[in-house]
């Protein structure tokens, strides 16, 4: 009983040590930069389409809901304020991280798990190449960079969706929309807070993904479990850390 309660704690400890081992491998070298850039393309750029589509529709639905609610108080011209604040502070970073976990986290975990199942990780170690440094680190760093960048795209497309709905469908004035957004949404408090969050989320999702990939049992079922665990655990952690960070940032 106590043992099963302690198991997650022990696992967190091991994952933390894994993170330390990974960060210990950071060197200013051309090859690390190169492989990080390659991963940034594979997990970041390849996630762009889904992030942009989702961002656009989240922006539209936010505007729709906000206008409906604000109309009751005759304040529907405040819609860009509501959309902007909720987007930059919360929805942008959180939804991007959750989508990223589903799109890129799973592929990282499955890829590493499969490399393990086909003893490529073993082969690497036997060639005196540290697989944590060569395989895990570039993916982790790429995730750390990719989530903030993807969040920016998500936000941009969401604002676009909101403009299109508010102006095109609900018939609000386009000048009012932008003015409210410019004067009411603050760079430090609203925008940067979201950026900090998205960096942390990027770290969480990619750490969870490489960790489950590396600790996967080297079988088909093991890889499957690792993939599922990646999505479940990173989503839960993102939401928990979202609350913790929000309470400190505001």
């Amino acid at each position, binding site marked *: 009983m106590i043992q099963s309660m302690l198991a997650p704690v022990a696992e967190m400890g091991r994952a933390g040590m894994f993170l330390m081992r990974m960060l210990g491998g950071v060197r200013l070298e051309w090859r690390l930069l190169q492989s990080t850039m390659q991963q940034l393309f594979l997990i970041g750029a390849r996630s762009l389409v889904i992030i942009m589509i989702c961002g656009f529709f989240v922006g539209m639905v936010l505007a729709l809901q906000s206008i409906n609610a604000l109309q009751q108080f005759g304040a529907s011209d405040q819609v860009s304020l509501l959309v902007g604040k909720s987007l930059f502070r919360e929805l942008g970073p959180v939804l991007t991280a959750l989508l990223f976990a589903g799109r890129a986290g799973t592929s990282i975990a499955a890829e590493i798990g499969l490399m393990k199942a086909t003893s490529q990780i073993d082969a690497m170690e036997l*060639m005196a190449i*540290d697989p944590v440094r060569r395989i895990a680190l570039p993916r982790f760093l790429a995730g750390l960079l990719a989530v903030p960048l993807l969040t920016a795209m998500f936000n941009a497309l969401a604002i676009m969706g909101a403009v299109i709905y508010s102006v095109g469908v609900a018939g609000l004035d386009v000048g009012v929309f932008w003015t409210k957004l410019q004067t009411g949404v603050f760079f430090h408090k609203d925008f940067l807070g979201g950026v900090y969050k998205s960096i942390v989320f990027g770290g969480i999702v990619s750490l969870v993904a490489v960790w489950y990939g590396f600790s996967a049992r080297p079988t088909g079922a093991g890889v499957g479990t690792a993939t599922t665990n990646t999505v479940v655990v990173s989503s839960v952690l993102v939401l928990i850390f979202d609350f913790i960070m929000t309470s400190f940032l505001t």
Partner: protein
Amino acid sequence: MNSDGTTQEILIKIRGLTFRRGDRLILDAVDMDIPRGSVVAIMGPSGVGKTTILKLIAGQLRPDSGSVLIGEQDVARLKRAELFKLREEMGFLLQNGALFTDLTVFENVATPLREHCKLSESAIESAVGKKLEAVGLRGAEQLMPDELSGGMARRVALARAVVLDPAIVMFDEPMAGLDPIAISTINRLIRETNDRLGLTSIVVTHDVEQMIRLADYCYIIAEGQVAGQGPPAELRESENPSVAQFMNGRVEGPIPFHYDHAGASR
């Protein structure tokens, strides 16, 4: 010829090697001597711990007791950095080759070079080309591993294993699952590279016929211990019941057919 194994320098000395997995005893006080320059086969039924011996030699696993001495170094006592240094002197051909599936044949063979040597691109190209030439795969550089046949993949893995010109090369079931022609090719390549590059080769296999053609010296492992050893031709005549059972592939004999959970208590 180096089949007597008596007058030669011993490169790898294994003494009292004992290894447990959980409470099951896998290896029980195994002693082995692997002379420099020879091809030594480690044989035995599947699941008897042959691969475990290779992993212990490479320091990927640590023994519960006993030691593996390579030259003067005790593998189990090395720090991680020293172990990695030592592994640069070792080449491995793992079961099924274990090629990196996201890299081309060329990049697979070039990986150890890029990692451990500061070479120019043209030096890497010529070194990789030479090794691929030796395994008869010049021209396959740009293929991906999933475009190779089983035998070709094994040959690429062999080229990768020897690209750093190691002192020791270990082969884990190099012939498993290949067609007869590919088996003979791999067999010949192991012999050729061993003699031409002056390597010491350790081959783990359960294929009796191939081992007789290939090895200079042979250890047969059964039930966690060395059941027999000697040049292959002598082993064939062995009176030891475990050795005779294995060499002739008989079901009846001291090597049990049933999974022996009581083995846990040994």
